[in-house]
């Protein structure tokens, strides 16, 4: 067994006081593919960014070839031979393949001009040594995602990277492209490179990875040989929490169908999504980030209307092409991104809360200030927003209180169907419990609630029924009694049989 090339020892990282990595250790040997596995928010990306010098750890040490190192900036880790290929590719679209490989380090003639001949010769040598077949003069914007990845890998290797970090490299590749990528990865492994491989597709990890390290809630769980761990065990390590009774969904009487969605499709984003949501019911939507859940919510709410499919609201067919229509039909959407879609951070709480209902606080277009203020005050008070006064700007509040303002805003529209997209992401435990209690209470009053959440305990604790999405499709549906974390994770991660996709 060879000595580790890269070792992270008890890395701790905090963002504005919140610990996102707690004493995480990770060790990488040359000539291995090491998978990094965990739920959304488990800390994988942060750990990668610590390795690449994007973030500096608040505690712990990084050892490279046995020497302690500190990376203060991405180029420092690059010089040390660590390169990362992120989900969002970073090629220059208008430069060609060869230029992209050598960008910033182009060979020059003595006169200082670009030495094109050397550039193409070296690029050619590099690509053929990797067994890649690419047109060197093709512009990057004309390449497929898979080809762009190849170029990025070639670029990394051209600067003698010995450690390659690949963050979900297969998420947008076809099966043949994945096979091609894996051939390349194996080749690099044989050459002695060390590869950190992040993927949610467990099957892939069994195919390519030698070892796996599991993270959960920002802590290190275990490192195992891939060959000696079963799929179920892996899932258990990933989710392995026992659900506390922090999530108090009370029994409610389930009423009539409030929202019915049939074969909803937005081309290229999600396909044939169908479900029913009843009054008094909380329908959980589980899945990984990027599974298309937020897009379904946006389509139903009219932000980006679907290309085909049918929506029925309270038994009547509805064609919703704008949020205004959705609001008039009694829908409300608490979006995933508070800062971007939920709030207007520079404006005060009154203006934020009253925005969807301005028409009802005005007569012939003239705002009635007192009515608006009273309504906003009442809504903020009911949600127990903690702020000095309602004239404070929304951006001055904490994350949890901002979320309460968003909820106050949407509940003041008196919705009958409430869509919550990640309602408790990134907020403190106290507010989280308060929001869960509120959801339960609202369902008790007969509201129909669609809750998108990437947090399994939340989905399982709060939902009457659970819908699982993967790659734009509904892959499973469970009742509260049937659902287990393993079943949900399995439906959220399994690869759909070849031929059925794309």
């Amino acid at each position: 067994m060879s000595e580790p090339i890269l070792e992270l020892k008890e890395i701790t990282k905090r963002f504005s006081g919140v610990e996102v990595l707690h004493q995480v250790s990770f060790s990488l040997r040359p000539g291995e593919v090491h998978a990094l596995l965990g739920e959304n928010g488990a800390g994988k990306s942060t750990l990668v960014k610590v390795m690449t010098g994007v973030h500096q750890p608040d505690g712990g040490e990084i050892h490279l070839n046995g020497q302690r190192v500190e990376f203060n900036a991405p180029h420092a880790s690059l010089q040390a031979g660590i390169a990362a290929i992120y989900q969002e590719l970073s090629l220059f679209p208008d430069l060609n393949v060869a230029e992209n490989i050598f960008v910033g380090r182009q060979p020059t003639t003595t006169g200082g001009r670009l030495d094109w001949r050397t550039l193409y010769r070296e690029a050619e040598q590099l690509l053929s040594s990797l067994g890649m077949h690419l047109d060197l003069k093709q512009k990057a914007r004309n390449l497929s995602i898979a080809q762009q990845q190849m170029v990025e890998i070639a670029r990394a290797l051209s600067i003698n990277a010995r450690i390659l970090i690949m963050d979900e490299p297969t998420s947008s590749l076809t099966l043949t492209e994945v096979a091609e990528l894996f051939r390349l990865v194996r080749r690099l492994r044989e050459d002695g490179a060390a590869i950190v491989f992040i993927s949610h597709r467990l099957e892939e990890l069994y195919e390519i990875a030698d070892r796996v390290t599991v993270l959960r809630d920002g802590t290190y769980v275990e490192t195992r040989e891939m060959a000696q761990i079963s799929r179920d065990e892996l899932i258990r390590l990933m989710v392995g929490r026992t659900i506390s009774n922090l999530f108090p969904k009370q029994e409610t009487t389930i009423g009539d169908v409030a929202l019915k969605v049939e074969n909803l499709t937005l081309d290229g984003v999600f396909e044939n999504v169908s479900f029913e949501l009843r009054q008094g019911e909380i329908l959980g939507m589980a899945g990984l980030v990027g599974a298309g859940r937020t897009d379904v919510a946006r389509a139903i709410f009219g932000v980006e209307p679907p290309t085909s499919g049918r929506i029925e609201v309270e038994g009547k067919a509805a064609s919703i092409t704008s949020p205004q229509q959705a609001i008039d039909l009694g829908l409300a959407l608490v979006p995933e991104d508070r800062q971007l879609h939920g709030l207007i951070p520079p404006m005060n709480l009154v203006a934020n809360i009253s925005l969807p209902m301005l028409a009802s606080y005005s007569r012939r277009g003239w705002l009635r200030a007192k009515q608006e203020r009273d309504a906003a005050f009442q809504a903020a008070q009911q949600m127990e927003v903690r702020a000095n006064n309602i004239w404070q700007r929304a951006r001055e509040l904490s994350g949890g209180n901002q979320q309460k303002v968003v909820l106050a805003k949407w509940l003041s529209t008196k919705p009958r169907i409430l869509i919550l997209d990640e309602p408790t992401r990134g907020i403190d435990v106290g507010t989280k419990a308060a929001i869960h209690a509120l959801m339960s209470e609202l369902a008790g009053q007969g509201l129909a609630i669609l809750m998108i959440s990437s947090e399994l305990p939340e989905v399982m604790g709060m939902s009457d029924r659970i819908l699982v999405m993967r790659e734009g499709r509904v892959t499973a549906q469970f009742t509260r009694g049937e659902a287990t974390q393993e079943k949900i994770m399995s439906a959220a991660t399994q690869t759909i049989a070849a031929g059925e996709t794309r």
Partner: protein
Amino acid sequence: MTESRPNAAPQGAERSAGATISAFPPRRSFLARFQRWEWMLVGLIALVVLLNSQLSPYFLDARNLSRTSSDFMEIGLMMLPMVFIIITGGIDLSVASNLAMCASFMGWLFMRGVPIWPAALAALLLGALGGLFNGLLVARVKLPPLVVTLGTYAFYRGVAYVLLGDQAARGYPASFTYIGQGKLPGTLIPFSVALFILLAIIFGLVLHRTSFGRTLFAIGNNENATAYSGVPVARIKIIVYTISGLMAGLAGLVLAARFGSTRPDIGVGLELAVITAAVLGGVDINGGIGTMGGAVLSLLLIGLLRFGMGLLNIQGQVQGMVIGLLLILSILLPNVARTLSLRGGSTHQRGRLATAAAVVAVFVLFGLFFFWSRAQVLGAG
């Protein structure tokens, strides 16, 4: 949410403390109330009046003031909707060209025998159409307003030249020229000033007292969240650009009436003064912040500055330089204030502070030169 939400205190949640929020803003000290941009403008206006009245005996003459006030009413008329547009985060560079297109169209119709009032009405309509075109490109096609209106800036001016060529339309009847030259009966107040004041009050009320005005601020501060809240963002943008076109048309009529004739180069370069007036008035060029009162005050300041410079025979080009520098300063000042309030700060902030200081220094030098040249003029005269 329904009327009754009994004390459903959930386990584990921190829901103990009674009143969590107040409905009333905190009391502000007497001095703090004066820490507003508008008060600073009032101070600057007082300073300009004081300096000018010292430098020229003609400055405080009622007849002069009356005449000069009508000189920048076209700028004012176009500034009112410009405040709306900048608050939504947009910009309209085409206003002065649109003005020329409308005035030329009216003159063209008039010279072909169309009576003046129908011709004027048609010109207003054309202005609104010009604005609507901008609005559609910005809101529906989603092109950047800067580029769209830069394009129509050239296009509308071109239309004016196509219509009139190198000739001037003239011979407007007195009933028409009244809107640019006339005074309210028995007073020294020009009709155009009265028209501007009336419209400024209406625009101010719409901006600050209606739900429409509120949505303008919301769009400028966060367009996405505003759209998620059910506000028809695209429609509102189209409306404000159309209003801008309509007001440019109205300004065109007033300017043509004041000159008594129309040439296709009418109102060249006015968009600079229009945008400067809005931005100097505290309207944030990035959108989301601004008051109509501030914009009107800054219009007054710019008008008085130009009047003072004109009295001292300072050339139009130099006046343009002053207005341009004023525009930069008005965008810079709030940034400098913000940077200063973040004491310490990073090297990046210090770099910005240094740049700001350099620009202010250029300004001060320019101001000294300006007053020195005035003194020369006075000494010679």
